[in-house]
């Protein structure tokens, strides 16, 4: 495998690690199965691409894309908190609505960014290195910045409130935490990260596409759930690191699997493989490990 390909895994893995951090907050911390991600990822791409194409500073555009994601995530949480719509349905409603909104924002199914100045262009000029190296450098900087900011956030009273809300809402309420507002802020934050991930994705691949969000929720879950079950992380600092590592490792293993001719996989099999990976991990996590061992290896005298 060439350096170019390896850097490609890093590049895409780092972009999606921001999404993974968002998934970590919604699914693991808040335990809110948030499907609006399927709409907020392309929303971030669309907002970012349109603003950049209109000549706005790419960094500002990326941050504004994050703000749009925050609003969408807060809306999903509000549908659940204020109107008691079940979390899954709230997420689907917002994702479906965003499909139309994204088409409106872009004025069509996609928005090319060819020739526009992206966050990756200036560093490529300063460092005078090939873009596949400078892109990774920029992404490492952005991801580390976000990781450190999240780590600091998790140490504050607000961070504790987020964790308590997901872990035990009744206890959180009794401890004076506004559970509804915390859920709204937390899901807003998770979707802001998703949208930033989408905006960066659009800038790397030369444009936004309304279908860019298809299956991203499973991609995010694959990075978070698989790595957390392999390396259970006690501290938040380790957990956020695991999300980033998981995302890159996931991309690398997917790349290797697709490249291995022996397996006979095509790029279009990606979603199927990812879904299987997540399903198997969840089965193992739920205590199915012993059951599988019993079934396939006939271990005697082991009971769940």
């Amino acid at each position, binding site marked *: 495998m060439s350096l170019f390909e390896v850097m490609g895994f890093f590049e895409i893995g780092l972009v999606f690690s921001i999404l993974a951090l968002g998934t970590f907050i919604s699914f693991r911390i808040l335990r809110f199965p948030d499907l609006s991600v399927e709409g907020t990822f392309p929303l971030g791409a669309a907002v970012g691409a349109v603003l950049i194409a209109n000549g706005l500073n790419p960094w500002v555009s990326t941050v504004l894309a994050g703000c749009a994601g925050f609003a969408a995530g807060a809306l999903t949480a509000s549908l659940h908190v204020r109107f008691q719509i079940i979390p899954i349905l709230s997420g689907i409603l917002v994702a479906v609505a965003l499909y139309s909104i994204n088409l409106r924002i872009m004025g069509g199914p996609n928005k090319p960014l060819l020739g526009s100045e992206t966050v990756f262009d200036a560093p490529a000029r300063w460092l005078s290195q090939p873009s596949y190296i400078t892109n990774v450098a920029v992404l490492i900087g952005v991801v580390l910045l976000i990781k450190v900011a999240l780590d600091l956030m998790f*140490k*504050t*009273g*607000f*961070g*504790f*409130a987020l*964790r*308590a809300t997901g*872990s*035990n809402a*009744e*206890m*959180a*309420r*009794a*401890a*004076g*935490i*506004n*559970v509804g507002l915390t859920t709204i802020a937390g899901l807003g934050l998770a979707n802001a990260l998703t949208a930033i991930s989408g905006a960066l994705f659009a800038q790397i691949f030369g444009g936004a596409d309304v279908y860019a969000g298809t299956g991203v929720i499973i991609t995010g879950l694959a990075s978070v759930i698989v790595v957390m079950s392999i390396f259970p992380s006690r501290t938040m600092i380790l957990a956020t690191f695991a999300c980033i590592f998981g995302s890159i490792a996931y991309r690398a293993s997917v790349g290797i699997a697709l490249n291995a001719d022996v397996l006979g996989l095509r790029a279009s099999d990606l979603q199927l493989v990812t879904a299987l990976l997540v399903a198997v991990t969840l089965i193992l996590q739920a205590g199915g490990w012993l059951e599988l061992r019993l079934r396939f290896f006939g271990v005697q005298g082991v009971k769940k």
Partner: protein
Amino acid sequence: MAGIALTVFWRTGGEKVISFRNVDVKFNLGTPLETHALRDVSLDVKEGQFLTVIGSNGAGKSTVLNALAGGAPIFGGSLSVDGKDVTHLPVHRRAKIVSRVFQDPRVGTCADLTRLENFAIARARTQPRRFRPAVSPDMKDELKDRLSLLGLGLENRINDLVGQLSGGQRQALSLIMASTGRSKVLLLDEHTAALDLETASYVMSLTSQLVAQTAMTTLMVTHSMQQALDYGDRIVMFHRGKIVLDVDGTERAALTVNDLLSLFKKASGEELCDDALLLG
């Protein structure tokens, strides 16, 4: 026996902390399951008083605690705590004045957070920290000091997850958490009912120790008449959403479990057939 006053209204002292005024609580309003859990209840509790609340199942004793904590919707009357009207205040906005230990040890603490993190969350009840670091160095010392009083060795491992603790240990930690900060009122909702007898008596002795130490105004709901007589300084008995007995002082000191049972019979006109009340 003749000297025991069956009063519905407590004499109003100057320094009352809790004041129920003709409070009505209903659940499942407008459905066939509609229940009138509290009917026109008026009750005053003075500062520093330790009240035990008894009654048969569905009598309204837990609802009194829920009305105070904010979990039960109040349809009529008013409720004030520490001079503040809290009738329609949501649960999280009452946490500053009211702290609580639940019946189920798993409800009062977060299993996947550490002991220190749980304690920091409880401390933030009266002193919220929002965007400042949730754990301060003095918090660690305070938690270690207070855990060492338990004699369970929990103070050595404040960074271990709460989920690793037994039910009794978690309930002890819940008590420590509930009595930290500056809350005026402590609510104990059958907090020993889920524990074995030995652990229950340990948690009860810890309870009376902490109540004496913090001088918090305390309401304890219990199924056990014996426990109601052994702890606290005033007994209130509920039946069908109303207070049917309210005694304190020397009248209360002379009472036995049998006296309580016959008082209940007299007040309600019914035989008490709830076995759970006789135990313990």
